[in-house]
């Protein structure tokens, strides 16, 4: 009985020993797995904040050495744009040199890894067969590049995203006769999947940034083109608006002429029969005078919109500007405005309607005076602009003031008829000016800064198209 019991106890102790050994092995495995999970977690966190493919690749090859002890070198390949060659972009041990050539897809450890569906463990003859797929040159190249080549054990894994294959990871082992084991595979696969996700995201982010930059550039170009278009269309639109208003004004003036003629001359007929000393005679005179005044207003309004047919002729813009400044000299002096003239002596003559251009200069100079109620400087500048591929030879006249400037919200409406910011303005001066300059084939540009002043630049082509315009 005692012997039987003693044997039973011995058996149990032996079984216990075996179980304890098994438990110790499991503990080792658990500790290894725990360490690897820590590596994976750290890699995961690092990958989250990595922003470019190069950083990700170097991080991954470094972490691979910690994840799988016994690894001599970790290599990360990326597929090229044609999808034909794998390019080594990161290596754990030596820095990459230009001597490492690309690998074709499908052969050698990297080529096989790229096409494999999952991570693979290569040991023994299987690894030798795959290494044999390398050409002698490639083999020599790897021997020169890696300190431990050929490897005695290897793990390979594809880098895949949901839609495409990105590259491959190759881990070469054999240090201290360590061989990779099947339970290493899930860790390599996880590392490869994390790498693929991080690379895909970085690539997409780079593409998105590139598209965003393109979008910004396109919007900027669009805005520039729109601004140029607006700039070109604005005078035409203003001119068309002015023409429409002018047509309306002329039409109204014509319709008024007949009743005005009848009323005016009815008074004339009455006048013939009323004695000059009749008590009511002064009122008749007043009525006649006021009707005469209406007649003059109507005529002026009609002529204002339909500039008189002044003759075209050789016109010296410098002379016109000098004459205009002379005309307003008293006004300038009273307002304490200093005039600075920078008139180019090389200015060509224009074929233009001098009276109309004088009106343009006068309008702009008087506006400049209004903008400087406390005095300031009025700079008048002319210069020829040589012909270019885009523009014909042009004459430029600039009138700058140091006045109150024009608020941005008013700038786009400056040349619209009846648009004015002055309490007593008619809003016609600049509209008429723009119309006249447009009729001469030119344009007016305005640059203004509130509190600093404004510059009106009048650009007139030397060869005026006005002769072909209906006047």
């Amino acid at each position, binding site marked *: 009985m005692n012997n039987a019991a003693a044997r039973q106890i011995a058996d149990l102790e032996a079984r216990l020993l075996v179980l304890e050994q098994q438990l110790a092995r499991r503990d080792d495995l658990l500790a290894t797995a725990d360490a690897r999970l820590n590596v994976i977690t750290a890699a995961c966190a690092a990958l989250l904040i990595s922003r470019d493919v190069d950083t990700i690749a170097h991080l991954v090859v470094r972490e691979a050495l910690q994840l799988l002890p016994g690894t001599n070198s970790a290599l990360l390949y990326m597929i090229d744009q044609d999808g034909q060659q794998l390019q080594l972009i990161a290596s754990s041990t030596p820095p990459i040199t230009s001597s490492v050539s690309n690998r074709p897809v499908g052969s050698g450890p990297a080529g096989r890894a790229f096409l494999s569906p999952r991570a693979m463990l290569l040991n023994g003859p299987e690894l030798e067969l795959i290494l044999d797929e390398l050409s002698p040159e490639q083999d020599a190249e790897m021997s020169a590049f890696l300190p431990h080549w050929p490897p005695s054990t290897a793990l390979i894994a594809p880098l895949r995203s949901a839609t495409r294959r990105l590259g491959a990871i190759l881990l070469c082992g054999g240090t201290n006769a360590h061989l990779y084991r099947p339970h290493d595979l899930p860790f390599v696969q996880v590392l490869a999947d994390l790498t693929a996700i991080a690379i895909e995201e970085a690539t997409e982010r780079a593409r998105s940034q590139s598209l965003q930059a393109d979008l910004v550039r396109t919007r900027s170009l669009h805005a520039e083109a729109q601004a140029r278009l607006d700039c070109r269309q604005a005078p035409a639109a203003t001119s068309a608006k002015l023409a429409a208003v002018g047509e309306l004004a002329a039409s109204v003036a014509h319709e008024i*002429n*007949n009743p*005005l003629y009848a009323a005016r*001359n*009815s008074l004339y007929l009455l006048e013939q029969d009323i004695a000059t000393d009749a008590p009511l005679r002064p009122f008749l005179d007043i009525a006649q005078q006021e009707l*005469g005044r209406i007649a003059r207003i109507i005529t002026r309004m009609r002529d204002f919109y339909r500039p008189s047919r002044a003759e075209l002729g050789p016109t010296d813009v410098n002379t016109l500007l000098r004459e205009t400044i002379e005309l307003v000299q008293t006004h300038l002096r009273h307002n304490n405005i200093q005039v600075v003239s920078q008139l180019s002596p090389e200015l060509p003559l224009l074929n233009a309607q001098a009276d109309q251009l004088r009106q343009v200069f006068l309008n702009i100079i008087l506006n400049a005076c209004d903008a400087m109620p406390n005095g300031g400087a009025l700079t008048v500048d002319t210069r020829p602009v040589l012909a270019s591929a885009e523009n014909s030879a042009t004459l430029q006249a600039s009138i700058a003031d140091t006045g109150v400037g024009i608020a941005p919200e008013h700038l786009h409406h400056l040349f619209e008829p009846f648009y004015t910011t002055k309490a007593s303005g008619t809003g016609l001066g600049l509209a008429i000016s723009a119309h006249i300059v447009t009729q001469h084939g030119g344009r007016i540009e305005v640059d203004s800064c509130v509190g600093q002043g404004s510059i009106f630049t009048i650009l007139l082509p030397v060869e005026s198209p006005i002769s072909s315009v209906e006047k």
Partner: protein
Amino acid sequence: MMRTEASNEENAVGRQRAAALRHAITMGTWRIQIVDKDRTAAQITRRGIACALGSAADVRVALSANDAWLACTRGDVDLLIVDPTPNDVAALGLIRALRHYRNPVQLLVLTAYDTPGLRSAMRRFGVKSYAAKPIELRDLLPSIRHQLQELHDA
């Protein structure tokens, strides 16, 4: 053939002018007609000229441009005053016809629709006297007297 037609036309013009002169000499009055779609304006013109010239003028407002044309062809008009409004084809047609057929009637365009285009068109039609409303009669009457004087001198 062309020469014969031109000759006939010249004879007709001569006859009309002679008739007008005979009338002016014998009756002592100038026959003036006004073509104006604005009836009030037309009456004021008529009254103004009538007052100014008194019995020396017989001033009438034509019922239409066509009536005025018929009167001119009969030699019953010495001075025709027309307002060719843009939408009145008949008045423009009347002026064109007078010039085309070389009618010797004196013509004065008195318009409320003065434009460079109309002035230019009137010049092309050979119109020498042109006035724009709302001209005062005191300024218009000298021009009318001058035209009548020209007719008399001719």
